[in-house]
């Protein structure tokens, strides 16, 4: 009998009991594996978060894909290509980890393509100059690392294992971005200006990427218990700012926040008000590139259909042929 079927005929008390044991296992730092009993809410929450994470990796390829053919040198081109390929890999690790929770790959694609599932709002901003490749690697991958490192210890085994692999690969992404920024910052005045402009445009969206303020964040408490989160959004954001400001100093660039100031007492930077209206507008689909991203994604899926079908037909034919040869 499948775990789900069994759940339906269990008494409420039995379920409560199982849930208690389940929470205790997680509190003891035990991992949950795909076939283990789990509360429906745990399954659903993980499907939501993990698939959104996978979607973000996949859609995240689009803004950078925009510059692969126009990279300024072969060195930059192979690096960007490898970086974008890694993001595809991250999406695939995460999709297959999510499938272990009983949702199919097709259902997940369907949710993304119909707009039912979300992806990180940052990928709805345009990449208008080469410096954006630098700013994305430095800031967007930088913020992603801060988000992802704690997930290497999350309670769901397949998610934790996928994140360990992802985190190992992210450091190259951030370094290649920073190197682009460094080169531009030390280049001609126009190049430096280009780097500054990219920082101006990506700084605030990168801060928003770490999620709504703690006061507005709905899932935090439960997520902390399940180790889907280990630090609050505001703490992660502060960590990101504190480690990024000195990096901007090295570049000789100015962070576009007049309120940014070192706070001796807190041992952290104070920073200005984030425009959360903008964040929610983008989340709701009204960012500068939401439509373009979905169009590109759905288009790629639809244009690839004949290839998927042909590969399947070929596989079936070869199978048939092999069977005949055996007889």
């Amino acid at each position, binding site marked *: 009998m499948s*775990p789900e079927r*069994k759940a339906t005929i269990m008494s409420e008390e039995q379920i409560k009991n199982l849930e208690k044991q389940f929470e205790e296992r997680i509190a003891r730092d035990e991992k949950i*594996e795909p*076939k*283990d*009993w789990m509360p429906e809410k745990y399954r659903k929450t993980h499907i939501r978060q993990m698939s959104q994470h996978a979607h973000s990796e996949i859609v995240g390829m689009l803004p950078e894909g925009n510059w692969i053919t126009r990279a300024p040198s072969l060195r930059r081109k192979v690096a960007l290509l*490898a970086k974008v*390929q*890694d993001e595809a*890999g991250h999406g*695939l*690790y995460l999709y*297959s*980890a999510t*499938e272990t929770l009983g949702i*199919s*790959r*097709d259902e997940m694609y369907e949710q993304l393509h119909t707009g039912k599932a979300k992806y990180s709002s940052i990928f709805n901003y345009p990449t208008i100059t080469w410096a954006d490749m630098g700013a994305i690697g430095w800031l967007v991958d930088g913020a992603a690392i801060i988000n992802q490192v704690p997930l290497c210890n999350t309670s769901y085994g397949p998610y934790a*294992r*996928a994140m360990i692999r992802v985190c190992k*690969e992210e450091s190259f992404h951030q370094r290649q971005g920073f190197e682009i920024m460094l080169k531009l910052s030390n280049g001609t005045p126009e190049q430096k200006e280009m780097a500054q402009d990219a920082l101006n445009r990506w700084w605030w969206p990168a801060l928003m990427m770490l999620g709504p303020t703690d006061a507005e964040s709905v899932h935090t408490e439960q997520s902390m218990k399940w180790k889907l989160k280990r630090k609050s959004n505001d703490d992660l954001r502060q960590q990101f700012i504190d480690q990024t400001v000195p990096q901007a100093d090295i570049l000789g660039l100015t962070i576009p926040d007049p309120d940014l100031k070192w706070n001796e007492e807190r041992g952290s930077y104070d920073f200005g008000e984030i425009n959360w209206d903008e964040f929610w507008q983008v989340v709701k689909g009204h960012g500068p590139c939401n439509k373009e991203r979905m169009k590109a994604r759905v288009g790629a899926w639809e244009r690839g*259909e004949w290839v*998927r*079908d042909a*590969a*399947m037909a*070929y*596989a*079936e034919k*070869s*199978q048939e042929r092999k069977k005949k040869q055996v007889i």
Partner: protein
Amino acid sequence: MSTKNWPLWEVFVRSKNGLEHRHFGSLHAADADMALENARDVYTRRNEGVSIWVVESKNITASNPEHNGEMFEPAQDKVYRHPTFYDLPDEVKHM
């Protein structure tokens, strides 16, 4: 809509000779050859392996964690399978 979806495959990678193949994850592919190629691109982009196995997921029979009691408990009370079960005087060396 595609007529048929690519099946799911489990990927096992030997990191280097001398080590066993270890489960790395899974992926979708139309057939075994494609599964191998995709596994190379998805799981070994940085020399993580010297050998890959792919197995269609539906061919794996897995034990059910709900039956872990019957399945694994019988080994629990068999302490005599461990060297520490045997009482020997301290003078006995190399054993």
